[in-house]
């Protein structure tokens, strides 16, 4: 079936080439049938790439090791669940996933806009097909997912154990959906500039896709953070890693765009800024992909080879150069229709919010690419760590959260003293109450965390007030009971109130981040059974070791051959709180020297155990000392004396020895307050985002339209 996959890629490239020509010919020569044919190329591309993706997926699920990518990233011992996800663990497979998702989202976008802005959409089609063509070319000329080896290997290397976690099944598709969705506003932005239709219409067309991109990217980032926290052995959820940062940058500029587009819609302002943000977001999304694929920067996530560096740099150069040329050459049609009336207005707050977001993006960009910058300037590769990022991002995040509370309540055009007093009393009151409560509880250190809690209180007050006032206004207009009025309010103004819920969720999320990073207690030490230690106000006692053998009995269901761990008792003030069972999995290494090493010689992976709660998480990881002489004697004896099929006997002996005479193990223990609120905040953001992005039922829209139309006509008659 590899032949079918390769043919799919060639057909897809031909479809892209024809589609670009047809779209441009259609729009330049006013031949809509060619534009329609170009759009259908995107649909056809989605179909062809779906077949290609299915071919690869079947190869993984059926252990067809004739496919190089299957042999490199899967094995018979890899659980089926993870074999399905292993497709995108390889560079080739993830390029295919990128192109496939791009074709699917592009098809949806072009289908939904098929009757609108046809000139802009035709250019956008050409851009989207151009991007798809780029990725397909990479798969044909640089990294093909359908390369095969004969004779077919009997076994594969297996999926990287670090990736054998449920969140890893969905994290990459979410992130890639975000990246690929970012290119849709980019394509329409380029189309609007080429067609010189840069009024608010194109923004209205792409708004929903920009929001969807933001949502998917945010979800991908959150899942990545969750994976890092709940699966990796270092105990954090964000490490300012280059690949993490690469996904955060387009999310930040996308957030800025979602706010500034409202000013263009309402006031006809910020046209240059908006189109620049869209182009920057799309380009940053491509750069994010480039960072993962090129291997140009060190990252725990990056797994690409250096082979893709030149094509990506060329594409990014074309995107940046083309964007600058288009914006400069269209400056005559990008003039603002109005000016800002007052610095104390919603417009000004939105602009301030945009500046903070872009400043955050710039700081992260500088820190992420600093190794490259420093190497270019003085020939030495230097990098900056989390403290450098924290120094700049923490104050900016504080301002951002505060602005997210001010924005929803401040007046458009100009705020007067009277409406400022009316709108800010409640939020300021809640912020003040928060401060008093914190001081009363004895929280007097960590000023940034206290400031964040107060800002979050301010946001809670302002959003709560908006819902109460909106529901009251709805009751006054429609005479509905309060709960119905609240629901109708949200249903009829999804974008606005969904957005407010997102603000609330972000404030909650930042409370979790501030609390967990400022008031965390951590301890790294060696313990033997019976010994205990203190972490914050908790006592952790190592009760006894655990050991399981063969992938079938791996408690974490990741397919480890041997799993060594511990049972820990957690108590507080003498009362039992939780029992934790951290372990470390040892995986098969087909190339390992000897029958035992081939079974457990792969990269060991920590399986953390935690007691998560609303107020705090108690988190634990173990690194058992498998190098202990008593265990190594068994490994060496097994390697030298046992045949390939008998290695498991030595593993069983090793497990028994570990249970009988456990060597001292290294533990990493953390007590973090309010971590749970990061995930709750993320879910609130997701819920708000879904409300905001969800389309209104057409029947409702029609009914509303008829009513407002009659009012508009009635007022015209009065005038």
């Amino acid at each position: 079936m590899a032949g079918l996959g390769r043919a799919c890629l060639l057909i897809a490239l031909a479809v892209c080439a024809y589609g670009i020509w047809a779209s441009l010919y259609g729009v330049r020569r006013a031949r809509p049938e060619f534009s329609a044919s170009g759009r259908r190329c995107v649909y056809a591309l989605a179909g062809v790439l779906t077949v290609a993706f299915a071919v690869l997926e079947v190869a993984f699920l059926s252990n067809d090791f004739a496919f190089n990518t299957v042999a490199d990233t899967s094995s018979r011992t890899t659980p089926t669940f993870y074999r399905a996800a292993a497709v995108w663990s390889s560079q080739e497979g993830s390029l295919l996933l990128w192109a496939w998702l791009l074709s699917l989202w592009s098809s949806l976008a072009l289908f939904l806009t098929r009757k609108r802005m046809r000139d802009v959409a035709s250019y956008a089609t050409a851009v989207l097909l151009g991007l798809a063509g780029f990725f397909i070319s990479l798969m044909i000329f640089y990294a093909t997912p359908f390369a095969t080896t004969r004779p077919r290997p009997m076994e594969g290397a297996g999926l990287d154990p670090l990736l054998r976690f449920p969140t890893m099944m969905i994290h990459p598709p979410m992130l890639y959906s975000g990246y690929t969705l970012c290119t849709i506003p980019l394509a329409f932005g380029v189309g609007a500039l080429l067609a010189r239709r840069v009024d608010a219409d194109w923004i209205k067309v792409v708004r929903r896709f920009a929001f969807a991109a933001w949502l998917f990217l945010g979800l991908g980032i959150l899942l990545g953070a969750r994976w890092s926290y709940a699966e990796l052995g270092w105990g954090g959820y964000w490490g300012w890693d280059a690949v993490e940062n690469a996904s955060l940058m387009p999310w930040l500029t996308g957030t800025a765009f979602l706010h500034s587009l409202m000013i263009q819609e309402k006031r006809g302002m910020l046209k240059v800024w908006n189109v620049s943000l869209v182009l920057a977001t799309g380009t940053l999304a491509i750069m994010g992909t480039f960072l993962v694929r090129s291997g140009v920067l060190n990252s725990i996530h990056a797994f690409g080879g250096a082979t893709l560096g030149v094509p990506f740099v060329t594409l990014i150069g074309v995107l940046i150069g083309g964007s600058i040329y288009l914006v400069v050459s269209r400056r005559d049609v990008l003039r603002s229709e109005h000016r800002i009336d007052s610095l104390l207005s919603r417009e000004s707050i939105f602009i301030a919010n945009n500046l903070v977001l872009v400043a955050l993006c710039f700081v992260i960009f500088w820190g992420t690419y600093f190794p490259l910058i420093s190497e270019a300037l003085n020939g030495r590769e230097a990098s900056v760590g989390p403290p450098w990022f924290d120094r700049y991002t923490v104050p900016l995040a504080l301002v951002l959260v505060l602005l997210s509370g001010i924005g929803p309540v401040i007046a458009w055009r100009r705020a007067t003293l009277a409406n400022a007093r009316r709108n800010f009393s409640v939020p300021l009151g809640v912020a003040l109450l928060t401060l008093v409560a914190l001081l009363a509880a004895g929280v007097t250190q960590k000023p940034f965390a206290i400031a964040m809690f107060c800002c979050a209180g301010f946001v809670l007050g302002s959003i709560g007030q908006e819902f109460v006032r909106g529901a009251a206004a709805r009751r006054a207009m429609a005479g509905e009971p309060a709960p119905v009025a609240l629901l109708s309010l949200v249903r009829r103004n999804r974008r606005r109130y969904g957005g407010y819920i997102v603000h609330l969720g972000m404030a909650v999320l930042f409370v979790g981040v501030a609390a967990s990073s400022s008031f965390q207690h951590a301890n790294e030490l060696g313990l033997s059974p019976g010994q205990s230690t203190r972490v914050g106000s908790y006592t952790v006692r190592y009760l006894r070791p655990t050991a399981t053998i063969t992938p079938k009995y791996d408690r974490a269901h990741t397919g480890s051959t041997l799993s060594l761990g511990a049972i820990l008792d957690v108590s507080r003030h003498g009362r039992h709180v939780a029992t934790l069972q951290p372990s470390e999995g040892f995986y098969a290494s087909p190339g390992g020297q000897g029958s035992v090493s081939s079974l457990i010689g792969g990269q060991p992976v920590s399986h953390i155990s935690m007691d998560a709660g609303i107020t705090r998480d108690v988190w634990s990881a173990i690194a058992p000392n498998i190098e202990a002489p008593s265990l190594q004697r068994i490994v060496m004896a097994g390697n030298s004396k046992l045949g390939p099929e008998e290695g498991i006997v030595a593993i069983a002996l090793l497990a028994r020895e570990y249970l009988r005479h456990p060597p001292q193990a290294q533990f990493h223990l953390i007590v973090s307050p309010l971590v749970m609120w990061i995930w709750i905040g993320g879910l609130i953001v997701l819920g708000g985002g879904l409300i905001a992005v969800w389309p209104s039922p057409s029947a409702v829209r029609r009914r509303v339209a008829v009513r407002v139309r009659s009012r508009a006509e009635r007022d015209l008659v009065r005038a």
Partner: protein
Amino acid sequence: MSVLVAVLIVVLVAAVVIVVSAPLRASRVRARVSRHDDLEAERDAKYREIRDAELDYRTGKLSREDYEAIDGELRAEAIQILDRIEAEER
């Protein structure tokens, strides 16, 4: 390459050609439809802006003078769009 794969490739190419060439084989797409849909979308967006302004006023984010000015402006724009839709429909 097996016969099955060859047949699948031929079927795929045929399907692509059929999908992509359909608009070229059909009569020319009417540009008028596109304009009408653009106007309807514009009208719906304008109605939303009118509702938004009213909600802003009622929740204290627009002064009465600003609201009346904006509302009048938006309604006048809505009427213009309705007129253009009617002209398209005639």
